[in-house]
Each structure stands twice: as structure tokens, then as C-alpha cells.
């Protein structure tokens, strides 16, 4: 019974989820953020929590850091090191984390 439920859940999620490799690509990129923003984007002091942030919000903030529209001490420099597809992967990963 338990197996059946897990399978059904997996099937329901499958069409929306990225492939395993893409998931790991997002996970690995996001792990770099954890040093300041907390493991999986949770539990950090003094830095914005990233876990559970809506994907479009994170993408927007990242883009604004990159353009200089959003004031920053460090993120204007870090954000310039990531491509748009990489920012999408990072945002998808954190959006899927529990707050």
C-alpha cells in the first residue's frame, strides 16, 4: 500500500519535475549559497532565507543584483558569475525546499 502511494505521488510530480541530472545540477549550484544562506536555504542568521522562496521572486532579485537595481554589498559581484539558466535551476531548487 505504501509503495502504491509513493508511486502515485511520483507519477503526479514527474511531468513537472526536472530530470534527476537537472535536479542535481540545481542542488549543486544551490549548495554554494548555503555557506551564507544556510543549508538548503534555511536557518541562517542575518541573511535572507532562500528556502521556499517563489521561483520568480528569486530570479527577479538575482537579476536586479546583477543589473545593480537592487543595492548589495556582495551579491552584485556574485550574481554576475551565473548564467540565466543557472539562476533558473537555483531558483527552482530553493522554491522546492520547505521554509
Amino acid at each position, binding site marked *: 500500500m505504501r509503495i502504491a502511494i509513493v508511486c502515485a505521488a511520483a507519477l503526479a510530480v514527474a511531468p513537472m519535475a526536472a530530470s534527476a541530472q537537472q535536479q542535481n545540477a540545481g542542488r549543486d549550484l544551490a549548495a*554554494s549559497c548555503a*555557506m551564507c544562506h*544556510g*543549508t538548503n536555504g534555511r536557518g541562517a542568521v542575518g541573511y535572507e532565507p532562500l528556502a521556499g522562496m517563489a521561483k520568480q521572486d528569486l530570479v527577479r532579485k538575482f537579476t536586479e543584483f546583477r543589473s545593480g537595481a537592487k543595492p548589495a554589498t556582495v551579491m552584485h*559581484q*556574485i550574481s554576475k*558569475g551565473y548564467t540565466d539558466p543557472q539562476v533558473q535551476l537555483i531558483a527552482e531548487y530553493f522554491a522546492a525546499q520547505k521554509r
Partner: protein
Amino acid sequence: MNRTFDRRDFLKLGGAAAALAAAGCATTPQTRARVVVIGGGFGGATAAKYIRLWDPAIEVVLVERANLFTSCPISNLVLGGSKTMEDIRHSYDGLRKYGVQIVFDEALAVDAAKRSVRLERGGALSYDRLIVAPGIDFMYDQIAGYDAAMKTGRVLHGWKAGAQTVGLRKQLMQMKDGGVYVLSVPLAPYRCPPGPYERACQVASYFKKAKPRSKVLIVDANPDVTSKGPLFKKAWAELYKGMIEFRGNAKAIGVDPKTNTVKLEVEDVKGDVLNVIPPQRAGDLAVKAGLITANNRWCGVDWLTTESTAVKGVHVLGDATLSAPGMPKSGAMANQQAKICASAVVALLNGRAPNPEPKIANTCYSYVSADEAIHVASVHTWNAQQKTLTTVPGAGGVSSARNALEGSYAWAWAVNIWQDTLG
């Protein structure tokens, strides 16, 4: 993955290894892969945690000689007196909730053919993959008289946070007003490029309050300040006017505690507190394990996986590695490298290819007073042409100016990286 223990092995082993083997037999199938991590610094502890986080089916054993983690980042503030040893000491207990098994023991040797690590007290530990994160050890023989001088306690490096941090703080407190603190910096590469200059700021900050006639004399083997130069020099001129003197191309070749002298190639300098930081190399275990590949000092790795270029199945992390271009030897960098390593180890033990495009970011803060800080940041990405990690052009940089906002971020950075590393 074929870790097998027969009865004879079991009898040969003592203590920790046998206990772990027994626990393994009782609760898990024999095919379960085991990763042994030697060294619980920023690199090793992070790798141990993230492997368990990303694949709880892998058994992870962390071997660490000290019962508590002592952070080098923030340790300069202990010298300056605005933080204490309690602020920088942390328990390893947080790693247990991820299922990391912690063995407090000294790793003595690695047998790569048998995939086994020999411990001082706990027998031997077999592994499917080994992660070696031994930090640095010092090349005392490069400075005549150093070993003897250090044993008397008169000359300290304070470049591994711990007893020497406490000793150095005590010497600074006992120094008379009007005294000279000499800080000798080795040629790069060494652990934490901006560390010496942050230390100069912290000691000067203490002098300014407690011993205003005293001086900081930096004698640096490098031609100039090796990291965040303009920002440090501005802080020295504006916050500690007349207190900090910098001399470049001033390599220490000897110390004489009887005459309070540091002998340089070009001259001798005298001081009341002699803080001489010797040249460094990968930690002793890396030497014993045959992992040194560059200049008799550093461990070459494939930065795609952090696997040693000398010994298959062994990964090396942190300050012990031959750094990729533009990559500082820092706790932050070790924490980041550990995530490349964890991802690769999990993939390889599951029969998958490692992430083909690893990318990591570094941010290092330095306090220039008790509450103002500056940073350097960089992004490092896999470069398929050069087959190493290289910095992303146009990304990264340093602070525009020192300020208290970055000071508050710097403290939060420390709290958060300790948490990300230790649980």
C-alpha cells in the same frame, strides 16, 4: 562497496573500528558503501555532512583528532579582544543528526591498495572512498631556530586556531605599552591570504585602546600586501595612524628569542612579541599518504571531483590542495570544495557520472576593527579547455569601502558557515 569483515579482521581491530564494524553488521547490509573522512575542518566536516544529506544510504565516518572544532576565521578577533575562544569553539555533535559517525582519533597511515586507514587507538577503518582534509602543517626548518623558539613558547605562529591563539593573546596582554609586535608573513601561497593583515588591524585595535604607544611591525616575504591591499592600507592609515608599519620583500630566515630578534634576508628586526608565521605545506597525513604532487608541498586534485591526481579513490580538500587559479586557501573555499567532492562521491558510489560543470562561489570577510569589515568575493567554474576551475571574468570583487554593515554580515557569515559545516 565490497566492504567485508571476517572474524579474524574483527579480532585484529580494536576500539572504534570494531565497534563501527559491529554496528554495520547489525543494522545494514554488507554492500553499503563507506566513506571515511580524515579531518573535521571546514572541508572535511562539510563533505561528511553533505554526503549524508544527499545520500543517506552511504555510511560516513569522520575521523578527527580534536574533540572540538576551533575556527581560524574570527580567531584574529580573539587576539584583538573583541571575541573569546568560546566564540570560535564548536561541538561536532550537530553532524550526528545527519548520521555522520564521528571517531575522535588520529589517522596514522593510509593503505590505498587495501583501502584502509590505520588509526592510533582504534585499529583500522576500511573505505570505498576516502576524503583527506588535513589542513596545513608548518615548514619550521625554513626558519633557523624556529622549532626551539616555539617550544619555549617565546615565538608563536597562531596560524592554527587553538592553544597558540590563547598564548599569543596572553603575550599581547603582558606586553608593555610602547612595545613592538612583529608579525612575519611567509611567501604566498599560505593559509588565508588576508589573514595576516586582518591580524595587524586587530592587534592595533587592541593597542589603540590599551597600549597606545605600541607598534605593529609587519615584515612580509611578499613584495606587497597580498590581499585587499588598498582597503587594508586605507584602514591602517585612517584607523591606526602611525601604529602599523609595513615592510615588503622582508622574508624571515631565522629567529632568536634570547635577543628578541627576527632575522630577515636583508636586516634584523627586534620586537617584544614575535609572531612568526612559517611557510606551510599540506598536513602531515597527506605526506604519509603519498598525496603530495607539487613542490613537495601541495596535493594535486582533479577539480571536477577533487580526486587526488596521485592516488585513486582518495579525494583531497581545503588548504592542503594545490589551489586552482585564483582560488585562495580559505575555510570558505574548503566548505565550497567539499560540496563538489560530496556530489562527486555520491554520484560515483551510485555508478553515475559526476556533475560535469561544478561551480562554486567564495566570500571571505576581514575585520579591520572590532566592528568594521571588508570582503573579497569570487565565482569559480569548471573550465573544460583548461580542465580546472577558473574564476568567472567580471564576477567577484572587493568592498568599495570598509563599513559596519559588512561587519555585521561578517559575523553572520561566520555563524552561518559554522552551521553549514557542522550541522
